[in-house]
């Protein structure tokens, strides 16, 4: 077939069929206004209810976080006091045993006190690193509104 003959072939006209696919996605820390507007369209007043629930939820979360942090700080102080007492008791027992003429027992008391506190330090440091790494992984994942069911991802 020559180039000329190819040009003579009539072009096949497509049927008047159109396919339109719409996909909406959003990447934002807060849901787009359209989603809220859809709820408002279902029944007027829903958007206001959502905002009220949001304010309540926000206040509840902040209050909860405050309580948890305050409790954790108290626990931390308690740990500090307990650690201090362990250290003091260990040093006291070592001095007492040395004064009584029991160097072996004194060494055991002294070493066990120091080793336990250093062990707690190392363990705490490890746990701290693990927790911070986990936070780095999870903190920036956005929460999604699941339209099909009420699960929050």
């Amino acid at each position, binding site marked *: 077939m020559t180039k000329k003959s190819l040009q003579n072939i009539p072009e096949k006209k497509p049927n008047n069929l159109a396919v339109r696919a719409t996909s909406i996605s959003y990447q934002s820390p807060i849901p787009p206004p359209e989603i809220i507007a859809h709820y408002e369209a279902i029944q007027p007043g829903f958007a206001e209810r959502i905002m009220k629930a949001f304010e309540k939820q926000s206040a509840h979360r902040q209050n909860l976080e405050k309580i948890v*942090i305050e409790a954790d700080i108290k626990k*931390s102080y308690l740990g500090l006091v307990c650690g201090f007492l362990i*250290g003091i008791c260990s040093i006291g027992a070592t001095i007492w045993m040395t004064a009584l003429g029991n160097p072996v027992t004194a060494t055991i008391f002294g070493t066990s006190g120091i080793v336990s*506190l250093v062990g707690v330090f190392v363990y705490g440091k490890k746990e701290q690193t693990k927790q911070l790494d986990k936070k780095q992984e999870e*903190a920036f994942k956005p929460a999604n509104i699941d339209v099909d069911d009420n699960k929050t991802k």
Partner: protein
Amino acid sequence: MTRSNYLFTEPSFVEGMAHVVDIGGNFAKYNESKTPSEADYKAIQLDWLCVGDDLVSAVNIVKKEIKK
């Protein structure tokens, strides 16, 4: 909690105990950023993600109410 306390770990009993031998003051560790701008960016992003979480929770609460 992960977002709000991103910078630091939650204080705990073990952490408090460990501070007894933390003479050098290097026990505390933070999620650091390479530059101050990056730190600001992350802080703003996490603040808004918290707001988003609350809004999503609110939407889900209202959705449950609607279903009832």
